[in-house]
């Protein structure tokens, strides 16, 4: 099926296999390997990307569903402040879940979501950090040091 979409700010028209998931399409067809496959069933959030300003788990979405939509992956996020907040707060260890958190945090800031950060992030699993430092990093990034 031929689809039109915008990916990380660039317009594309491509023939896409209808049985392909969005994560496979991003990783295997577009070479965007920053999006990670971990659980493969929408539980862990490692494959989080933004589609039309909504965070989605790309392992559960079919690639053809991005037709006429705009997709942002971790590669499309060029926000030094965000990376600095994570690095400074030691919010990444093995790093495999990190792009998923980064994408989600970016979406939160863009949409001015500053409350209930712990609840917001609960769709992303991290096995290394115990979350404390990730929560600190996200608070610092979105400008909510209190709460």
């Amino acid at each position: 099926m031929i689809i039109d979409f915008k990916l990380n700010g660039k317009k594309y028209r491509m023939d896409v296999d209808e049985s392909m998931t969005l994560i496979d399409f991003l990783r295997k067809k577009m070479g965007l390997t920053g999006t990670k496959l971990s659980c493969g069933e929408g539980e862990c959030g490692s494959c989080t990307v933004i589609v039309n300003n909504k965070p989605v788990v790309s392992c559960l979405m079919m690639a053809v569903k991005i037709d006429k939509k705009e997709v942002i992956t971790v590669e499309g996020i060029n926000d030094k402040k965000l990376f600095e907040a994570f690095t400074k707060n030691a919010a990444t260890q093995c790093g495999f879940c990190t792009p998923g958190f980064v994408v989600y945090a970016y979406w939160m800031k863009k949409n001015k979501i500053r409350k209930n950060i712990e609840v917001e992030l609960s769709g992303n699993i991290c096995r290394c950090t115990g979350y404390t430092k990730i929560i600190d990093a996200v608070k610092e990034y979105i400008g909510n040091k209190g709460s």
Partner: protein
Amino acid sequence: MFIGSRVFRVDGFEKCMGITKYIDDYFVDAYTVKTIRSPKPHIKIKGIKLKYTTGLIKLITSKDLKGKYWKFVLSDYPFLATHKARFIGEAIALIVADTEYNAQKIVDSAVIEYEELPGVFDPVEAMKSKIKIYGKDNIFTKYRIKKGRGFIEDDVVVEGVFKTGYQVHMYMEPMGMIATYENSILTVYGSMQCPFYVLDAVCQITGLPKSRVRILQTPTGGGFGGKEDMPSLVAAHVAIASYLTGRPCKLIYDREEDFISMSKRHPSYIEIKYSATKEGRIKSAYVKYILNAGAYSTLSPIVLWRGTVHAAGPYEIENVFIESYAVATNTVPCGAFRGFGQPQVNFANESLIDDLADKLGIDPFELREKNILKKNSLTHTGQLLNDSCGMPDVLRRIKKDYIEAKKRKEKGLIDGYGIACNFYGVSLGARGRYLDKAYAKVSIQNDGSVNVFIGNTEIGQGAKTVIAQIAATSLGCPVEVINVNDVDTSAILDSGPTVASRTTLMSGNAVIDACKKLKKTLDKTGSKNYFEKIKKAYEMKLKLEEIGFYNSPPTSFDFEGEGQGDAYVVYSYTANLAEIKIDRDLGTVKVVRFTSAHDFGSVINPSLAEGQIEGGISQAIGYALYENLVVENGKIMNPTFTDYVLQVSTQVPEIKTYFVPRRYSHGPFGAKGLAESPIITPAASIRNAIKNATGILLYKLPMLPEDIVQNDY
């Protein structure tokens, strides 16, 4: 210079940007390898039929292998099942196919012809069962420790039988490897903790000499022990496929096969007793510690040993008797998991110590203070703690918080609080004494940038950053000029595994050794500035590449006799306090505050050390309250992220951490080791907090809502 400073992770920015390449991020023109697995827990294999063969390049069975068994601690685990398979998910054959699509279709079409054999699933039953999985009695390994008179009665005796469940590593990156066989060199790239274990296994399965095999670790998305033993098997499989076909091969596990076939934390069965005088002096301890090892031994003999030599807890006890067994059953093999046999037995001993305090009518904190190991104490293996020992200090450090917790309970702000503590032998100790050494190679380029090659891996714990801090401090250069390379077994000799909280200690010391030689060379230039020194040294043609080496001090532990002697070179120490809220109707427990104090020796990087503590506590809270792997007759019933529940961000307690460093005389800048000590004892402190809140005595892990509710009615 950089010791004790919060240097940012050297790999932090790249990981945040998503540009760090893990093994599945490499798209090479490779065949796909997939595994055909046993559908039943115990079978006699008659044959394999493939109904779909489009794109099939090769079917590999045990017959095709040069070495049929993985020679590790014991040599019982076949790389591919020979005539029998002994657990659900055991690898029986490999298929090599042209595409991933065809590979999956071929595996799905495979029919294994077999005769089903009776299985045994419980370790206590297996010890006396007629069904034989290993040897005469299904016991892989047993140990015995006797100190003083063994167990003796006194004024007060407490006893308990404890059972703990599995824990799954849940590393975010599943297992995966790529192998190439080109120009007579077999190279394996992949996610792993221990490249030298992998090297051994790849050479065994192919028969190639070590000089013709290269193992290259790729950035590894979490290990926690899960990538200590098992990558050897995955690498051996992909290596033999590439070796036999002459083409690059890629083998990436999907989450479910990773779940059912890779190692876990051992379930355990523990009988334990303490006796004490009525004044609260512990007089003796007895522990019978049984691990369900699963169908093959992997690291069970070593896991069991670590548990055994820590089994009576961090107390001065004159009379001790411990017996321990790792037992084969027709279940998934268990192996290394952060804490390595200590969390199970610590849960038992720290729970029972609390019950002893109750029976004596003494405050649990006071009972611990009275009996705790201190400098110049003897452990229950008779080891004299004459170097760094901060055990009493870490306990004292949380006393104020303990008193505050009491007040918070009185005010109704929390429902209960509990404490527990542990010691942790750093590095491999006596059971791994032949492996416990490390190399480093440090090369200074003519622009002043530095390559550091070590034999231990970065698996998220921060090894690269800590090693860079140690190298920069030793050389007197900025951290930014240091590049710590990913491990390549052809660039450095066997430095042992990346386990047992040993990387800072072992590789750190080896790096210091190399840097000292370089520093001496650089001093010959007479320059002051680092970059001027390098310029001058190159002009003078001085030697700017050095090998460093560190050999662990000897350990005297006696394996043949009564199990006495030095078990480890040094110990780290942790004490912690859990404060909980509990819903009596639903049985749910929420840990609201967690305070812990640690003596790891000097702390090289406090941010990374906190990360290890917070992560360890989080995994331990999961182990205590949420993570419940259900296994029925050898079949894992919930092999998914959906059904095996992990802690998420809404369940994080407020965490308070104290460092109580007691310098270790042989440690790099006084450091010991820290990644595992934090995970050992939170489960017991939560159990003791539940008791404090409700009076309910729990003897099992995980402690699920139904356990609490059932106790109420």
